[in-house]
């Protein structure tokens, strides 16, 4: 390290806080519930070459795809906009799924930070806006052109002057232009705030640029990850996972190679890309590998370029995890759970104490139509699933993993949209049995009020492929998509909901960890009393006699 460990700590910490402030500004200023309530956004600082320096953790810890996709995309975007083409006040916008986070509603805004006339850093924000046109948040488009508007890297602001052509184009292509414009302005404004704080930092610490700081950050992080990798027995670990796909089963094969020089994940053998919108661009695949590896090996080290350096990710071109343009990609978020599952599955063979069993699939759905006041509405909201069990703990119920987008309160959903929630509750026997039980599934039933039909985009997974348990733990339950209590729907198609139709959705329970028979009987009893495990499951899977429970009930 060129800086002493105290200077580096102080400056690094400040950079993270700048990313936090930038994230907070976006969060507070945003116009859609998916950003403002569910917190699906990210905030980061890059060095002058576009390497990730710091990212917000508290204000904008959205999804790995967004965070890491942006980190990988900035350098590419800067190829189109070399430093000589940029002036203070510029903002570049882009939503290209191949360059960034893998689907079009995630808008990234990047702004150069100038200090004493030269570019010293870039600020970046990424946010899932309410709409990007096309067929909305759907899984059954045939190519990315059908899905949504694609924005190549272009200037949203030219030296503080808004590029009205770009704004006009975007606003003319989306269903809720006011919300989208509001979000874009909130992003640009947040970037500007981040930039100002970076200038202040340089001033305060008497620095001319961030070259030394960034190299120190990268090197120390890289060394820490390499050190952690060197503690894993060298060799090759492979895991195959299967998923529902669109209309036939797909597979992901992850081969993790532990070497002295780093960690390589090879997805050779993974299914080819399909002509429906669940393909994950390489950035998304990269993001979920990086997230899993960092979580398992160096969870506490702030994310930055140095954490990426020891990683190598290979995915065959044209595969589900590295599709060619113009593959449809909008609903790649139903697949990334499986990337994570495959990587943890492989790692479980090497470091079983540092992994998490499979989690259910989060269920995000979008409904659009006409609201009670006769106006167009489009509403995206989420239902959770069970998180996988850990080697020392049960999985969390109703919490998704590895993505981390929150829910929107029922009372807010009902206030801002014509959706009516009938039920939102944990599902008994849904958590995979294990010494540590998988988290319980969270099922939601709703309908659309009013006398007009509405469109629903189903984008669910794990209807046929449950979350697997680890090291002898049992599988979680499967998810469901049911119309009016009895008719299963295709989990990835769009449907028209007639007035009064009720739809029930869930993403499945988390997998268990270690065999169920090893679970402490009092914990099984507690789950039975709480209605999370039935007497039948307790006796069948946990082999715990429920005489005690019957005594308890009699008492």
């Amino acid at each position, binding site marked *: 390290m060129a800086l002493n460990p105290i200077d580096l700590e102080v400056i690094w910490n400040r950079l993270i806080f700048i990313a936090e402030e930038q994230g907070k500004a976006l969060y507070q200023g945003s116009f859609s519930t998916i950003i403002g309530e569910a917190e699906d956004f990210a905030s980061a600082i890059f060095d002058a070459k576009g390497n990730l320096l710091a990212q917000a953790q508290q204000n904008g810890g959205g999804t790995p795809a967004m965070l890491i996709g942006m980190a990988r995309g900035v350098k590419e975007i800067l190829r189109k906009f070399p430093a000589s083409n940029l002036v203070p006040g510029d903002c570049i916008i882009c939503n290209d799924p191949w360059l960034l986070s893998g689907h079009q509603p995630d808008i990234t805004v990047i702004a150069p930070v100038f200090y004493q006339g030269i570019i010293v850093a870039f600020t970046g924000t990424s946010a899932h806006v309410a709409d990007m046109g096309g067929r909305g948040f759907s899984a059954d488009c045939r190519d990315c052109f059908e899905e949504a508007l694609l924005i190549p890297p272009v200037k949203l602001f030219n030296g503080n002057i808004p590029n009205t052509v770009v704004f006009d184009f975007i606003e003319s292509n989306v269903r809720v232009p006011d919300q989208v414009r*509001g979000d874009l302005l909130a992003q640009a404004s947040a970037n500007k705030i981040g930039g100002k704080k970076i200038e202040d930092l340089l001033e305060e610490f008497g620095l001319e640029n961030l070259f030394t700081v960034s190299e120190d950050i990268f090197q120390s992080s890289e060394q820490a990850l390499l050190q952690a990798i060197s503690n894993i027995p060298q060799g090759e670990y492979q895991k195959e996972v299967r998923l529902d796909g669109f209309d036939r089963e797909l597979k992901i094969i992850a081969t993790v190679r532990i070497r002295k020089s780093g960690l390589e994940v090879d997805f050779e053998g993974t299914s080819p890309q399909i002509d429906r919108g669940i393909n994950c661009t390489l950035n998304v695949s990269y993001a979920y590998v990086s997230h899993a590896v960092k979580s398992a090996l160096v969870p506490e080290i702030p994310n930055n370029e140095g954490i990426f350096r020891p990683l190598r990710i290979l995915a065959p071109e044209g595969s589900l995890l590295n599709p060619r343009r113009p593959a449809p990609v909008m609903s790649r978020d139903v697949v990334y759970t499986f990337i994570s599952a495959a990587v943890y599955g492989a790692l479980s063979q090497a470091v079983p104490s540092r992994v998490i069993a499979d989690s259910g699939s989060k269920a995000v759905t979008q409904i659009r139509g006409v609201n009670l006041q006769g106006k167009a509405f489009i509403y995206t909201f989420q239902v959770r699933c069970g998180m996988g069990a850990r080697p020392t703990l049960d999985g969390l119920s109703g919490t998704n993993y590895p993505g981390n987008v929150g829910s929107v309160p029922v009372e807010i959903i009902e206030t801002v949209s014509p959706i009516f929630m009938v039920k939102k509750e944990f599902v008994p026997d849904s958590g995979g049995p294990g010494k540590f039980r998988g988290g319980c599934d969270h099922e939601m039933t709703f309908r659309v009020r009013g006398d007009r039909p509405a469109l629903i985009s189903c984008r669910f997974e794990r209807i046929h492929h449950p979350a697997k348990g680890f090291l002898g733990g049992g599988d979680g339950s499967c998810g469901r998509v049911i119309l009016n209590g009895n008719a299963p729907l295709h989990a990835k198609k769009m449907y028209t909901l007639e007035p009064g139709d009720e739809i029930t959705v869930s993403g499945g329970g988390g997998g268990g960890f270690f065999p169920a028979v090893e679970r402490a009987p009092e914990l099984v009893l507690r789950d039975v009393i709480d209605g999370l495990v039935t007497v039948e499951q307790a006796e069948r899977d946990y082999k715990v006699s429920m005489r005690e429970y019957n005594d308890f009930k009699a008492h």
Partner: protein
Amino acid sequence: MPYQIGFDIGGTFTDVVFLNRDTGELLLRKALTTPKDPSQSALNIIRKAITDVGLVDLSQEIESIIHGTTLVVNAIVERRGSRTGLITTKGFRDIIEARKEKRYDLYDIFIELPQPLVPRYLRRGVTERSDERGTILQPLDLEETDKILKDFIKEKVESIAVCFLHSYRNPRHEFFVRDLICEKAPHITVSLSSEVVPEIREYERFSTTVCNAYTQPILAGYLSKIEGVLHDMGVQRDLTVMLSHGGIASSETARRFPVRVMESGPAGGVMAASFYGKLKGWKRIVSFDMGGTTAKICLVEDGKPMMTNDFEVAKIHRFKKGSGLAVKISTVDMIEIGAGGGSIATIDRLGLMKVGPASAGANPGPACYGLGGNDPTVTDADLILGYLNEKYFLGGQMELVHERAKEAIEEKLGSPLGLNLAEVAWGIRRVVDENMTNAARMYAFEKGKDMKAYTLIAFGGAGPVHACALARKLGITRVFVPFGAGVASAVGFLCTPLSIDFVRSYVTPLNQIDLEVLNRLLKEMDEEGFSILGKAGIPKKDIEIHRKAEMRYLGQSHEISVPIPAGTLSQEDLKVIHSTFEKEYEQIFSRTNPGYHIEAINWRVLARGPELGLHLKSFDSRDGNGSDVIGKGRRSVYFEEFNGYDQVLVFDRCRLLPGSVLKGPAIIEDVESTTVIGPGWTTEVDEFLNLTIERED
């Protein structure tokens, strides 16, 4: 001789203050809290203080008695509350466990959340439903409710939380359930979400109501006990209680809403800072309280602390937002940072030095306490740097061991980092000050404030040691260290007016507001305020009403707080509200969003009694001319400006003369704390022996 008594029962210490309102004399007492029965230690000190002061006729001599306590928070953290049941809308009984369905840490696979206060089998759904406008869609099924109640009685439930969807718009069903419980099981206490916090967003409302129900019986029993003893002693005035929003209220209000008592101690500290700000005529203040484990920072403007309605209790990770149980109450808006005298310095796996949030606490405490602690802490660094006097810690009650501090720092940090003792000690100091600076900046930023124009008021054991350094980093040019800063919370109680606040959700765009609805709910809250404060003996003419609303641009999720005019509102007033919103929005975000509609969410009313002037006893300047200050000699002290150690003058706070002016660098030692004055700072001593420390910008 009218006396006011303030007493604050904290987790470790109980502080008692007696104020003679005629002379302004303060009697300060501090003792260890008796954890089993916290009222015991307080009552013992009060008894003793009564003897010390020589009070005879308590019914005449005690004018008021104000209490703050951590009992409610501790009951939740330690799970010592009552057996609680939850009755909610059928289909939604897991709301309090599913929370916001978000992980507070993206990378921690071993993440944990606090267990809900009500186990699932005591969370029951009942058939009923209202919509977002309060229209009843499905009537309450009384038979089902009755069956649940019978079950609860069988389960020996002591307290019930009733939480229905959209009850903030229409509380009728919750009232029905309460009526039923009162009729069938009057021994069970009831908390209604529509009364505890009638605000939209079910997780926060339900969670708050459950916390309230869980702690209601325990707080009620505790307050009755204290009141009983006080009454037996002859005190006739009613006990009042400090609430988290920086107002005091009758013990009756505290009994109904224990969640409002949660932050009473820290709120007292902020109120003390507000008081000193008013005393000195400063409008903008940063209250900075740094103790053994944490530092707390709060902005105060025009004597009014910043407020928030987001609070969390029982956090799994004390400094991670989202790791606790949500409590939606109005609280003085403090940021709490894992930075205190006991914060431990370590080297992480990147080879960088981290300070806190782990703390050595009081036992074993910092290495220099010599109680067996081996970890280097902030206090150890402060000792090595010469800021603390090993012979005069806590006024000499405790000796610090220089050698232990040196060993700990050199062994655990110096050798591995390859830095010398002074470099590491200074490094600990820089890192902890930087941690506080970052958090403070973030906090001010969220509010659109720039701290440069504020005065930092420092208290707590470590506050005055770090105040100048923190101020410098924040660009603040004036620091103030009050006399007797060690019991600031209890002092704060004495200058806090009676007040109570209310909230109602009425979500509507401003241009579609139904003035009749709005005026009705504002009036309801006004009336409730008059009634509660009236019962406490405040005449209506002395009651101030402050109204606020949370508003945002239509479509946004985050509201800002906007002042609302008093009285019956007209269309004209709505225009005023509109422009006030834009002004406030611009202040925070440096921009507005022209063309977007504005939406109101929650409406709040704060009813306040008159300000109590607290007249402290002043010290005359004797015959000193200001420069004739008695020093305690010099010692070697480290300052960045010196690039090392140099000889610095040391003074005894109690022997300073009013009107004296001291040029920094200097050290001023007090019983509870030490004030470190950096080079370039000048200190003036006022007639109350408070220190005002200023720096040329």
